[in-house]
């Protein structure tokens, strides 16, 4: 059996099947969730390209599958990444118990993940742009729910993502020319510009980020969170493939300086916007944009250290985005206006969801004791010597998001109402008919998982980040 059959074709086929069975209650969720968990376990435990014996049976997972003359390769080095992707897909699936996204979410998310894995495994790796674009197309029905006209955000998102495809594919062809004549500065400049434009569209870098705040107002926050989690993660790992593949890119210090500059800018701007943002959905968008900025800063450090910091930043960021999205989904179920001013009413109805929301926002802003703090300290230590101004800009961005967290905290605290003179207060029941999430076992489990994930990551970072070198080893030339 080929690894691509196990981690790409199987979930894809199950996703297609569940698309038909989506109205069968909790069955699609359980089937997809258990399959994702099994695939995460298989990636963790089953070696690729080695004969395995279970009793009298023996089998081998081959690393490659050839389709139309091109191969999809998932080798032993890719197993940590596969485990990461399917573990988080499991979390995203079971998070639907709280956030209640549209019914189509379960099958479509599974098919999307199979396309993302296909994108990371296809050889030549440039074709990943096409597979990512197909995943984007699949997400459109979730982002623009049936029963309402398509908003401008969905259209802009679709357009920008499709724009990325020609740039990246054409750059791939130019890069082979650069490889043949590395001294041709004209060719290097053209390929660099095209590549930058392609990834600016794909990663929603400024000024091509405008669809994120627009979509945040049009779509279900859980679907948007899923998109903002997987798309940048896969796209940044795809971008690392360029550095791993092309020596001239890897050895070019100027490229890393540009990346650092863009990364700093991508952390600073969303951080400041988040500070002034009254809409919680848009806050999620800005937090995700900051995550992309930090990923770029990690890559910009260059060399093995840069790749390690990139993956170290990715893990807590992924956890915090998931926690933030589930919390927002829980709040969305009660009030979809997402206005900061109306947050105080949730203090009574959704105290646990609000607590996890705050935990995730503070974690994303990099506060001490929380998950993002240890890798960010490592990043800032490196940046302070190589690019101090970028470090300061990134720090200001973090403070902006922390300020947004503080605003949420103050907005969610119940306001003491002044009693009017002459009125006699009567004993009044606090129960206003809204069911509190304290009685919800799913929300309690989610709170526990979030606390273990975000606080555990911050307090025992060595334990949680032990897998980073094995994740980084999927790029053998960048991380020898």
């Amino acid at each position, binding site marked *: 059996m080929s690894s691509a059959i196990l981690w790409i074709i199987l979930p894809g086929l199950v996703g297609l099947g569940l698309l038909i069975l989506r109205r069968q209650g909790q069955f699609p969720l359980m089937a997809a969730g258990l399959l994702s968990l099994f695939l995460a376990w298989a990636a963790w435990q089953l070696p690729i390209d080695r004969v395995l014996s279970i009793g009298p049976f023996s089998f081998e997972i081959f690393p490659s599958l050839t389709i139309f003359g091109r191969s999809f390769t998932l080798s032993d080095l890719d197993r940590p990444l596969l485990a990461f992707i399917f573990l988080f897909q499991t979390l995203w699936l079971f998070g639907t118990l709280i956030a209640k996204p549209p019914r189509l979410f379960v099958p479509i998310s599974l098919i999307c993940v199979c396309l993302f894995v296909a994108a990371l495994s296809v050889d030549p790796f440039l074709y990943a742009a096409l597979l990512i674009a*197909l995943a984007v197309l699949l997400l459109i029905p979730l982002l623009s729910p049936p*029963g*309402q006209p398509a908003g401008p955000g969905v259209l802009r998102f679709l*357009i920008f993502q499709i724009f990325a*495809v*020609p740039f990246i594919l054409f750059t791939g062809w130019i890069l082979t020319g650069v490889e043949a004549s590395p001294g041709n500065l004209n060719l290097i400049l053209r390929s660099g510009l095209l590549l930058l434009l392609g990834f600016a569209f794909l990663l929603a870098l400024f000024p091509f980020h405008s669809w994120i705040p627009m979509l945040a107002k049009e779509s279900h926050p859980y679907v948007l969170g899923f998109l903002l989690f997987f798309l940048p993660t896969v796209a940044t790992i795809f971008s690392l493939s360029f550095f791993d593949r092309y020596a001239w890119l890897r050895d070019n210090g100027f490229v890393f300086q540009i990346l650092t500059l863009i990364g700093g800018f991508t952390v600073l701007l969303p951080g400041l916007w988040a500070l002034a943002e009254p809409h919680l959905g848009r806050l999620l968008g800005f937090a995700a944009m900051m995550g992309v900025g930090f990923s770029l800063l990690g890559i910009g450090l260059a060399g093995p250290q840069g790749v390690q910091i990139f993956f170290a930043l990715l893990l807590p960021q992924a956890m915090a985005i998931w926690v933030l999205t589930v919390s927002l989904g829980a709040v969305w179920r009660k009030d979809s206006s997402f206005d900061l001013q109306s947050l105080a009413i949730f203090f009574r109805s959704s105290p646990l969801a609000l607590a996890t929301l705050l935990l995730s926002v503070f974690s994303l802003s990099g506060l001490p004791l929380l998950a993002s703090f240890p890798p960010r300290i490592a990043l800032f230590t490196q940046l302070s010597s190589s690019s101090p101004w970028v470090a300061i800009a990134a720090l200001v961005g973090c403070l902006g998001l922390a300020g947004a967290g503080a605003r949420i905290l103050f907005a969610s605290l119940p306001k003491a109402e002044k009693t009017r003179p002459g009125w006699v207060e009567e004993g009044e029941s606090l129960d206003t008919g809204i069911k509190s999430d304290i009685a919800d076992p799913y929300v309690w489990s989610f709170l526990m998982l979030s606390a273990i994930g975000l606080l555990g990551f911050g307090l025992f970072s060595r334990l949680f980040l032990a897998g980073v070198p094995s994740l980084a080893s999927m790029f053998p030339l960048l991380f020898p």
Partner: protein
Amino acid sequence: MENGLLGFIVLLFLLGTSLTLLTHQDWRWVLAALGLQYFFAFLLILPSWPLELAAVKLVSGWMSGAVLGLTRLNIIKAPSDAEQRLPTSPAFQVLSAALVILVVIGAAPGLADWTRQLNLNQAWGGLLLMGIGLLQVGLRGSSFRNIIGLLSLLCGFEILYAAVEASLLVAALLGILNLGIAFVGSYLLLSPGLDPLE
């Protein structure tokens, strides 16, 4: 379609279909022009790819047009370009298209010379479709027009990319991408009338 009179005639037809796509208000004419555009793009791809592989582009393009056509047939109330922020008078559109054509005339010889794998007609045709597609996406606010613009843009890119890459997998994936865009366009057009419980 090497450089020559026949190639020039194909380019003229391609220009005509592009202008129809951009300026015509009737969706039937727009989709007919899209179908013709895919045929002329197929003729431009033929020098680079074998017939059976180039036919993939033609068939996937026509299927995309058919998907959009069937969807529009089933919509009783036509969606309007309510969100447009720029003028949409034919004069403005033709002037915008003239600017794109000027840029294409200037850029195509350089591109053909630089890549060495493209002939001049392919460079002209590819850049023209990409430019007009970009214009369509930028000028119009409706889902239908945006989807037509994206299909046009991708069609232009496919002409250019076919000259440098002849992979079966790429042909298949680009074909699926074209069809996927058409299906997404169809969904976006139909979504206001669908069951919100999904």
